[in-house]
């Protein structure tokens, strides 16, 4: 049930644009790694490269020691699951049918126990007979996450999993992500909210213009100097009375 993901010196070039330039990433069991950076920095490209979505210009991605290019797609799907940013589903599948698709790599779409558990965890059990297209954006996101959980993989790659969530949903979602890590899974999540990353990530990786500019534990990496530089915006980090760090943009 452990997965060690090692991505070494990833380079992705499309046409004349270098999307990723020599980025490395390691994730082991029990880690929640947050990938941060401004829009267009290459965060989703990094996640896609690690997921094996497209060929790399150079570099390698290994899972538990084996190169993902050498793994059969179905074997890979038993080790890592991916939550894409947004998906549009054709045909009126129900929530339950979609979550059950997560069991497909295991040829086990009737595994009621795992499907029920995944739906319960994301609080979509009440929606299970509803047609996916009739749900709100937030509900759809939770259903997609339930599908990813039903896949029951040791490694999860999540691309902006909390986009479109309100603050309560976001907290509940991150508690789920945390519990996945406590189960010994490895989680990589592209996040936009720096405060969320500060509180929940065991490690952060900051991507800027296709390069990894910093990585390490959130407290020491997310400094005003680095953030102000990366986001082109003066940013301050303050500490609350309870000793929690809060990241805020400075007044102009």
């Amino acid at each position, binding site marked *: 049930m452990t997965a060690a993901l090692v991505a070494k010196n990833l380079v992705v070039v499309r046409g004349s644009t270098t999307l990723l330039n020599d980025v490395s990433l390691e994730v082991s069991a029990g880690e929640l790694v947050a990938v941060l950076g401004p829009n267009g920095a290459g965060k989703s490209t990094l996640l896609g490269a690690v*997921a094996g*979505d497209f060929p790399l210009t150079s570099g390698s991605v290994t899972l538990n020691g084996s190169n993902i290019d050498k793994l*059969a*797609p*179905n*074997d*890979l*799907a*038993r080790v890592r*699951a*991916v939550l*894409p940013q947004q*998906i*549009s*589903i*054709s*045909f*009126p*599948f*129900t929530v339950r*049918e*979609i979550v059950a*698709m*997560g069991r*497909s*790599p295991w040829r086990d*779409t009737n595994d009621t126990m795992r499907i029920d558990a995944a739906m319960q965890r994301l609080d979509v059990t009440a929606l299970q*007979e*509803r*047609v996916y*297209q*009739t749900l709100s954006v937030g509900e759809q996101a939770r259903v997609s996450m339930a599908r990813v959980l039903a*896949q029951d993989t040791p490694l999860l790659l999540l691309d902006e999993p909390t986009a479109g969530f309100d603050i309560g949903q976001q907290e509940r979602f991150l508690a789920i992500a945390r519990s996945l890590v406590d189960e010994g899974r490895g989680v990589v999540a592209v996040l936009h909210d720096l405060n969320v990353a500060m509180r929940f990530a065991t490690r952060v990786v900051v991507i800027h213009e296709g390069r990894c500019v910093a990585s390490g534990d959130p407290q020491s990496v997310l400094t005003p100097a680095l953030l102000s530089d990366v986001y082109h915006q003066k940013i301050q980090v303050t500490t609350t009375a309870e000793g929690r760090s809060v990241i805020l943009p400075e007044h102009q």
Partner: protein
Amino acid sequence: MTIARRTSIFAVGVFLLALLLATTLLSLAFGAFRIALPDLLRIIGTGPNGDALDAVAHNVFWQVRLPRVVLAMLVGSSLAVAGVIMQGVFRNPLAEPATVGVSAGAAVGAVIAIIVGLNAFPLGVQLAAFIGGTLSTALVYLLSRSDGKTEVVTMILTGIAINAFAGAVIGFGIFVADDDELRSVTFWSLGTLGLATWNAVGVVAPLALLGILISTKFSRVLDILALGDRPASHLGVRVEPVRLQAIAVVGLLASSAVAATGIIAFVGLLVPHIMRIVLGPRHRHLLWTSALLGATVTLLADLAARTLLSPAELPLGVVTALIGAPFFLLLLRSTRRSQGGWA
């Protein structure tokens, strides 16, 4: 209505089988020459070489009516299953062999084969139809996809272009054909079961059954493709190879159907749509129930073609287009609404 209602698959299966049986009996009994039910049962009971008490009825049944009914079932099932697979692969409920030009492509292949004399070879015309059909499937697929999605507008417009091209080739075929060829060429463009023989059944049956059998292998993957290409690949599906295989199966089914009967439009559109409303979109049951309903619908349409203007006979393709085209318009409107307009 946001709760999906799904009818029990057992009830649907029994109903579809009963409907097919009833339609088959009706189709066997009615036509230019009417065979009463007791006679029908007696003729079936005595077998093809049995006593010819009523020689005419006996011959009509074994040499004309039965091959026609069997061919209608095979062609209807093939077209409906081809429609299911195509819609799954294109992720679009408007895809269908005839509307996107696959049938026309197959007809072009067949017409060219007739003109150059390939019909002298066994299976020559069918092979040419298969090549034409598969090529046009691949063409529509390549032209109407961008960023892993099939654009409805591009797909339909590609279909229009292929159909126009096919119309021109068939028109040219009519222009250069001699009388004998002329009859077979018009037959491809209109679609009819009027030339059904046991020979035709013998050619279509293995191809149709093979195609339908292979299609069941795709049921799991077609479900997952509904999530989109990337999510499907994350679930272990080899998206591109699977899609190419599925398109080849569509080519096989649609082309063998067209090779036997010419272009019969809209069966592949209407039937999967109805079954999806009744059973939901899961392909495991969608495929075989669509095969049953496709057979029934085609039998009914052919029965109408034979009896409405009896003793004259309407081309079957004309009947299915009369019913199917308005339905296609309705479906187009609702798809457009769900996609928020195509402007």
